[in-house]
């Protein structure tokens, strides 16, 4: 249904008048011009389009626009809007990317994990990241980067 959907995008108000059944990915990339969020598969299978809605990482290619009405949406552009976030710096430090196409989705998904679980174990990180695909094979470095960004674990944690 054609209507105006308003939400908070990277901390700022956004509203779009369009068919509210359209997927968030295309509204972000095409209507709002935020191309950091990538198209990879269109079916929620690869994670390149991962964004956060409220505190959850979601696949924007299968998230209807209407479902984010009134909510907070965070994209890769928002993760580093006040200077590089720790998770971005860690990806740089570890060269945790090659072609970089899956990287925004990886970073946003990791960001979501660290918001909920500030000091995850390496296993927890790997499980959380499992369904984000990387064809270049940066997997080990991505885990290293997320570990670095999570900082030292508290004793007993």
């Amino acid at each position, binding site marked *: 249904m054609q209507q105006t959907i308003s939400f908070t995008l990277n901390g700022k108000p956004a509203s779009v008048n369009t068919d509210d059944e359209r997927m968030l990915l295309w509204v972000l990339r095409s209507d709002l011009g935020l*191309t950091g969020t990538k198209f990879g598969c269109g079916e929620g299978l690869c994670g390149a389009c991962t964004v956060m809605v409220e505190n959850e990482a979601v696949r924007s290619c299968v998230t209807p626009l209407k479902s984010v009405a009134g909510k907070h949406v965070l994209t890769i552009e928002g993760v580093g809007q006040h200077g590089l976030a720790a998770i971005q710096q860690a990806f740089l430090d570890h060269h945790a990317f090659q072609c970089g196409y899956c990287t925004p989705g990886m970073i946003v998904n990791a960001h979501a994990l660290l918001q909920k679980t500030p000091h995850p174990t390496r296993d927890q990180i790997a499980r959380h990241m499992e369904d984000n695909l990387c064809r270049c094979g940066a997997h080990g470095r991505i885990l290293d980067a997320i570990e670095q960004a999570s900082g030292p674990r508290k004793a007993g944690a």
Partner: protein
Amino acid sequence: MAIATEGMVRREFFSLAGAGLYVFLHAEAQEPARLPGRQSGPTDLNAYLKIGADGRVTCLAGKVELGQGAMTELAQVLAEELDVPFDAVDVVTGDTGLCPYDMGTFGSMCTPLLVPAVRRAAAEARAVLVLMASERLKVPATELGTGAGAIRELAHPSNRATYSQLVEGKRIERHLENIPLKASDLRVIGTSPRRKDGPDKVTGRAQYAGDGLLPGLLHAAVLRPPAHGAKLKTADTSAAEKITGLRVVKEGGMIAVLHERPDIAREAVAQIEAEFENPPAGANDKTIFDHIRKIATQPRPVGQSGDLAEGERLAGSAIEHTYLNSYVAHSPMETHSATAQFENGKVTVWASTQAPFMVKNAVSAAMGLPSENVRVVARYVGGGFGGKTAADQAVEAARLSKITGRPVQVVYSRAEEFFFDNFRPAAVMKIRAGAAGGKIVLWDSEVLGAGEREANPFYDIPHRRITSVGGWQGGNPPGMHPFAVGPWRAPSVNSTTFARESHIDVLAAKAGIDPLEFRLNNLTHPRIRRVLETAARQFGWKSGQAPSGRGFGMACGIYSNACNATMVEVAVSRDTGAVQVKRVVMALDVGMVVNPDGMRQQAEGSVIMGLGYSLSEEVRFRNGEVLDHNFDTYRLPRFSWLPEIDIAFVNDPQAQSLGGGEPPIISMGGALANAIFDAVGARVLQLPMTPERVKAALA
């Protein structure tokens, strides 16, 4: 006139009188003859570098940054020879309007061919700048020193001129020959600085071909056939045409719908009611190997020596196996994408391609435009692996932009990406071989479909014959492969190495000899011996006869003169056939390493991608229809697959640098097959070694 260059490729330069232009030919190249053509590019240093008025230096390279780190490596050698800080170098890649000609980014040729060209250009530029400074400062050149983008009188450092003052933003018009490269005290080469592409990539600012949002941009979706060989009979676009803002184009055999929103164009194309005439029944992913055998013409000899009958006699009983591998997709995370703008008889195409100059020619030919009116830009490309050489989507976008008078973007869906991929070819590789007294005496092998690179073993075998039909590079008997095939990271060599190294272990097991010992018994190739010995040390290889139950396996190989030995440890479930890879140790000899961390990234990536082609990746198809449409059925390696990875470089620092993107992947199939055998005694003869195939081999 000949210019001495370091390394394995000797070049001769021929001056074109008066033009100030040079072309060069390779007098000799050690690349296998069947690599796709050869590198060529200008020798004028201005083609490769510009010194800006602000003191920053721009490196211009026709190669493309696919993720392999080309931008960083090029900046390193430029900074080294020109004596400027690494951080003062910007790199522009893949833009046919700005960068010197380059054939394409494939074949691990950037490091051995382009990097030295840029290095020479920078060395020459520095020498010319010293001459200019000598005149300006009125000091003999021998009393000048360079550093941090400036030239100083050694005795009076305040008497100085910066490069930008000398050049004043202009071309460097003077040229010098035979400028030696730095041989010692390297500041940047051999280090691992921050990747140049990092800041763009971690912030989402990196622009890929589908990220260009030009004013008035239309997104196109093109009607595709359901199967290769299907012919369009009728197409009714009336339902789609009802969508507000939709444009339908029917021209020159193409039916496309265009809309300002990409998802709406995609939905619209699904509403076209099209009828296709299906192609005649053909092979599927199960019958393909019989099909290839049937279609194969008389094999072409690739290598022969000794006397096969004598080899048979010496061996007593030879062992014959046929090794198979399925079609494998490239599956870059970025699908083929292009954005084109046609204006006033000229077109600019931003395209995801490994070969922007080839795409420029393709667009020029398809549109009937003079070459100078076509510019192709491939800034960041989201993975290639050999699959983004041709770029039909760029031609489609350019045509549609001309037709509609608007900028047009074409981005393949994931299903289109699978459908139009030029797969790694399926292959049937028969090997008959035998040993006597621990020495291989017979090797008779036939490669169908894969191509023959590295099919002729580097082992010392007196009686051998190697034949081949077809391959990834074409020349296939008509109908052998039911769709396009092409180069897939280390083309031919993943297939031929899997077959050879599996069979070496088969012979070792029959002889009751440890696989490492058996290999070394049969090898005089010093560089292969060295990587094997290094890997064995690093792995902690202990002699044992397979199957030992330990799940240890090894393989070694050569790709474009680089040597690789890989040792792995696996656990195999007898119940499910599932293989878990615990540890991979790889020793590589790729010559002098310009950027150790960059090389490591390539090796780690190759381990992961190697797990894919070895264990899970195969394209399912039937009668020209590609049945894999997305990542639910086509399984890529994931985080949970990640083994412990240990990479060792075995290199002579004085040796020519070799490309590193492909050599690390070649041994994974063979090493894993041998490890599975060592774990459970099951010899799997077909890639990928899925749980079903492992179980079948166990039965």
